[in-house]
């Protein structure tokens, strides 16, 4: 790790005053320390927000769910009201990483973490994400078994955040605060595809802090589920994960959100899968058709064709789980 100065802030104003000039926000520090130990980033100063009390706390009201960005993945996973009314979110938080990481990792840091692409994470490789001289995405002709199977022509990285998947499906909003004021960004606008910027994964600007994440209250009849698949059973990064939010009227699906994690460079909603489910009775056949539809535009690379099949199955099983027609898949991680 490089040498750096450290400043421990107690309020949002203090933290905002410290940002700029090579300073980087530190929350749980899990991703940041990982990047610093690998010499991918080397901030001159860490602005510690972990002790900013106003960024903590989870409140559930008739309007929805208000999450402080310092809420840990464990706190979200164990929260009874999130488990009851926003179950895809507690599932995603509870199946990310390891118990120890979940005790330290914060929601804000989780949606802000950088991609795991091994070319990006290696100092030996110059890749365009790092703003170096290279104009190539090395994954496209290289080792790409975990990379994107959709929207992968500019950069084939995937965003690894598990919590972003249900947050996108639940139309969450992220509150960003800077010295100039606050703005709310819909989760659907939060991530930036590589075609727009290959360097920045999110719309968060230097000098901005995530100060809240808001999830609107679910409509009556809403049910949600999330499942994640990896190579190991105990804990692993996802190689396919799916979040499904259904507004049900008996067996009939009035509205559906189907979100795929680690399929594309950003978490994405599958409009094709949603169209298959909307207005239909949810059963095995519609769930399978949704999985197929979600993958119709897949463009797998040389080594990741298997992810197409994996996603079809993940969506099929997660739709049935959300509809209450299947138990948690024992082959999913957790």
């Amino acid at each position, binding site marked *: *790790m*490089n*040498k*750096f*100065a*450290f*400043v*421990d*802030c*107690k*309020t949002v*104003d*203090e933290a*905002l*005053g*410290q940002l700029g000039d*090579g300073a980087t926000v*530190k929350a749980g*520090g*899990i991703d940041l*320390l*990982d990047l*610093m*130990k690998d*010499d991918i980033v*080397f*901030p*001159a*100063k*860490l602005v*510690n927000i*972990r*002790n900013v009390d106003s960024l903590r706390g989870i409140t559930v009201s008739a309007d929805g769910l208000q999450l402080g960005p310092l809420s840990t993945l464990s706190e979200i996973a164990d929260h009874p009201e999130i488990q009851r009314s926003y179950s895809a979110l507690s599932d995603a938080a509870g199946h990310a*990483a*390891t*118990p*120890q*990481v979940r*005790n*330290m990792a914060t929601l804000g840091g989780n949606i802000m973490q950088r991609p795991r692409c091994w070319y990006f994470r290696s100092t030996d490789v110059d890749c365009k994400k790092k703003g170096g001289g290279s104009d190539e995405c090395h994954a496209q002709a290289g080792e790409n078994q975990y990379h994107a199977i959709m929207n992968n022509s500019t950069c084939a990285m995937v965003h690894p955040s598990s919590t972003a998947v249900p947050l996108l499906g639940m139309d969450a909003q992220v509150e960003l605060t800077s*010295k100039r004021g606050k703005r709310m960004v819909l989760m659907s606008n939060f991530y930036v595809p590589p075609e727009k910027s290959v360097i920045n994964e999110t719309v968060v600007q230097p000098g901005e802090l995530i100060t809240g994440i808001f999830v609107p209250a679910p409509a009556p009849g809403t049910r949600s589920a999330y499942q994640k698949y990896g190579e190991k059973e*105990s*804990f692993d990064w996802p190689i396919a994960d799916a979040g499904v939010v259904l507004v049900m009227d008996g067996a009939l699906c009035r509205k559906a959100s189907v979100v795929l994690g680690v399929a594309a460079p950003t978490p994405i909603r599958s409009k094709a899968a949603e169209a298959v489910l909307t207005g239909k009775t949810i059963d095995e056949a519609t769930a399978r058709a949704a999985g197929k539809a979600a993958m119709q535009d897949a463009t797998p690379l040389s080594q990741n064709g298997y992810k197409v099949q994996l996603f079809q199955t993940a969506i099929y099983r997660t739709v049935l789980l959300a509809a209450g027609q299947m138990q948690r898949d024992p082959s999913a991680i957790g």
Partner: protein
Amino acid sequence: MADAPKIEVSRRGFLKGAGVTAASTVIESAKAFGREANSALQSVPTVGPGPLPIKLHINGEEHIVTVEPRYTLAETLRDNLGLTGTKVVCDRGSCSACTVWIDKVPALACMTLSVDAVGREITTIEGLSHGDTMHPVQAAFVKHDAMQCGFCTPGMVMSCAALLERNPNPSLADVKHAVSGNLCRCGTYPKVFAATLDVAQHRVASGLVTLSAGREA
């Protein structure tokens, strides 16, 4: 890599903020750390990049150590304080060998900055036993022979002991879940599960379990 530019530390502001006497510049509590009365923007004291003394609460004792902000808690425990029971294997958060408790919650010493542990209560594997008297989980690991090379063992014990603090009567699934992040390349998991469940069933008391006593069929 080039060192970060030197950052001015306001010693006066720092002393005032840290609430310590002028004789000492030790940072000693999370609350005091960095706080200035009515602090406005920019007024929070910055520490480092050079070494600074901090006070850590470890296993019920206070330790003053001089660290750079970049030193992890695992490095400080092992290199500065000689508490080498905490192991470092991956140094990246993915094996849990370095598990300690921070404010009673299992956390990773390799992914915690020492300066960020100020004011928190740290428990390491050395803090579980009392002199020669082992913690019941340690005694059960001996009884069940739940280790081979032993490198993952301190982290494993910290995870299992924390589980029993939270849930004195766990199921097998609960134990599996509690150690799901602890990698053991020797494959001791079945014995780790058996040892932990044995403690839960109150069959293992704390205290030294002699090997002969531990080796019953």
